[in-house]
């Protein structure tokens, strides 16, 4: 039993810190730390810096331009980047479609798409969910019918995160209606600029435009854009979901949010004393900090087992549930900490370049909106109920 980092791991952490000290743009970090929305340009600026360092594709093999980091190194990177306010990479290209292309794609697909993901030339989005197919993803209806050397795609995707910025979408489509639902699905790469595709914004409850509906009307997709074999897409989709879930626990993000909360609570006053000294509030914070410690150690245990060659199984589902609950609880406290100031919602305060008066405290402006927006954490990426179903099946055999 040894819970400390090795000398090499510590050296790696120093390297990460030196890089972030030097290269992370202060304006971007400030936005991330205060939960303000990032623009497309912010994401792209940071991605270029990361790519130049060779640290963008942390899940890829080196031969394709990835970084060969061990699970512990990845963990160190996650921790440090949350602490510094590094923007979370938009995962759809680099962490989702790329691993699928690397594992199941053909040579040409690798040659075409991987460099464009690295360089930031392509912005990908994920076309899985449909209005009728959420948790029950396999019931999806978007059709792709082969005609010569094209598929003709018709249907609708929904909840497409940041699809408004994307020029590429990876989709699950139905290519066979004769077989069991899971067996007739294919994995297609589609250029969003193809005629017949339209994108409509969905505004979330906090007024943000983050998700979209994507409509396909007789969209011609070259057969070269099929990944792997026709009708075998479900296997690839599931492979991708294991990648999707590993990041979702967000322990590092919770740590950052917790330290933001403490800062906020030491500035706010209740009964003439800093809120952080208030017995009720400090106990609430303490309880979350303790829960987070437990989740962080659980996370490390999973990482250590993967490092030793194991495969993360249903444990990552448990961690997703726990991690998202903890983050939501921190968001809840942050909103509580601003008291009556949870009500004002001044969108301009969140925008780029706002330099007007803050109503209360610049830390307060985005907190209510952030609380509501993060209700999504327990819904997407496989809702928490679905994760629990997975655990009860896989671990408990129920």
């Amino acid at each position, binding site marked *: 039993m040894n819970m400390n980092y090795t000398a090499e791991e510590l050296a790696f952490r120093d390297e990460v810190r030196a890089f972030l000290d030097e290269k992370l743009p202060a304006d971007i970090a400030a936005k991330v730390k205060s939960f303000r929305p990032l623009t497309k340009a912010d994401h792209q600026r940071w991605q270029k810096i990361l790519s130049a360092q060779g640290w963008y594709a942390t899940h890829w093999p080196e031969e394709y331009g990835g970084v060969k980091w061990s699970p512990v190194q990845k963990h160190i990177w996650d921790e440090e980047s949350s602490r510094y306010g590094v923007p979370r990479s938009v995962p759809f290209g680099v962490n989702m479609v790329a691993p699928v292309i690397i594992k199941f794609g053909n040579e040409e697909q690798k040659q075409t798409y991987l460099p464009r993901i690295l360089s930031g030339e392509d912005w990908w989005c994920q076309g899985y969910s449909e209005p009728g197919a959420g948790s029950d993803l396999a019931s999806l209806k978007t059709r792709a019918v082969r005609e010569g050397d094209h598929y003709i795609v018709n249907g609708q995707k929904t909840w497409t995160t940041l699809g408004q910025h994307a020029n590429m979408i990876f989709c699950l489509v139905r290519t066979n209606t004769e077989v069991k639902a899971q067996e007739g699905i294919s994995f297609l790469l589609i250029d969003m600029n193809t005629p017949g595709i339209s994108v409509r914004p*969905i505004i979330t409850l906090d007024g943000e435009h983050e998700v979209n509906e994507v409509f396909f009307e007789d969209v011609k997709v070259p057969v070269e854009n099929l990944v792997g074999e026709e009708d075998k897409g479900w296997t690839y989709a599931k492979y991708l979901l294991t990648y999707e879930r590993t990041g979702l626990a967000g322990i590092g993000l919770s740590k950052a949010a917790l330290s933001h909360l403490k800062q906020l609570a030491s500035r706010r*006053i209740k009964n003439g004393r800093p809120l952080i000294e208030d017995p009720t509030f400090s106990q609430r914070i303490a309880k979350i900090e303790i829960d987070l410690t437990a989740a962080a150690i659980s996370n490390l245990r999973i990482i250590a087992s993967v490092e030793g060659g194991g495969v993360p199984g249903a444990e990552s589902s448990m961690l997703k549930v726990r991690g998202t609950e903890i983050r939501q609880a921190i968001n809840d406290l942050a909103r*509580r900490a601003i008291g*009556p100031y949870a009500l004002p919602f001044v969108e301009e305060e969140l925008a780029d370049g706002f330099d007007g008066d803050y109503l209360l405290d610049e830390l307060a402006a985005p907190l209510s909106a952030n609380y509501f927006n993060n*209700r999504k954490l327990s819904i997407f990426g496989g809702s928490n109920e679905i994760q629990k179903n997975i655990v009860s099946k896989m671990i408990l055999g129920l």
Partner: protein
Amino acid sequence: MDFQLNEEQQMLQDTVGRLVRGEYSFEKRLEFSETEAGYSEAFWAQLSELGLTAVPFSEELGGFGGGGVEVQSVMTELGRGLCLEPYLQSVVFGGGLVAQAGNESQREQWLTGIASGELKAAVALQEPQSFYDLNDVETRAEKSGDGYQLNGRKAVVIGGHCADLILVSARTSGDSRDADGISLFALSPDTAGVERRSYPTIDGAKGCDIVLNNVQVGADALLGGEGQAGAVIEYQSGRAIAALCAEAVGVMEVANELTLDYLKQRKQFGVPIGKFQVLQHRMVDMMSELEQARSMAILAASVADAEQSDERRRILAAAKNVIGRSGQFISENGIQSHGGIGMTWEYNFAHYAKRLITINHQLGDDDVQLERYARLMQAS
């Protein structure tokens, strides 16, 4: 024991309910929220024409003579429609302050207007540092000429952006968190030195922060005795808490109806999702929370107009605590049960969820109420 409304009260509730159903569709509500006032002037006019803005005032003041239960009936229905009109601010709270603290001529001057709906009041009692403590007043009123000069800053004045009359607390003596030494002033927002910074609120309403910079008011702006307003404010905020609880019950009722409908309609894995036991149990919990909240709203209404006592204080703190917790439970679990749809602006549920959370931020959240309750419990 009889928990039924009497005939008159039932009629009142039905009248408001019909009006809300007829005039306040969700789509219209979104439109009202986008206007400068942030609510519907036309709907407000209808409320006043039906005499609803006069409900809590005594008959000699031109009112209906209603008490906590009548206010509860109105507020529950306004809650069901997520109505944005300043009924709580102007009629219940503002009107209550003027009715209790004002002298005859002040009541004549303002209350008639409030009761008829022509004059809209807002209450400016909170300050940036005050959290939920209404005794935490740093705004100062100094004697000046034959009146007072006000300086300070008031925070999150819901409805204050378009009110005709603003009721401001200011300290005439004492230290910043003393209960004694707080005075109440009636202020026209047009007075020189009053600056309003308006904004929308996250639940779709509107409000403002107010800066008072050497604001000169006459002696007739003082409501009640100098330095004596603490008790009045506490009493009236109790009435407002009872009204908020009633509103919350209306909001929760619809939130639960929408969720239950969705569980029956939405199919995944070939069955309505309401067939999944985890969602069934959650829905049952949501209903139980509503029942608890409803009981406490009734209890709160029953003491809203009673004489001030520790018992009344304790009941109101308990009610607001339950409402805060049950509101958050129903809000969060309702969103979760809806999946992605529950997160969207276009679907009404999200707006019910947001109102429930913001109610907790008005007049003291569940933590603050729990602390109050615990203090009172020790004292008794």
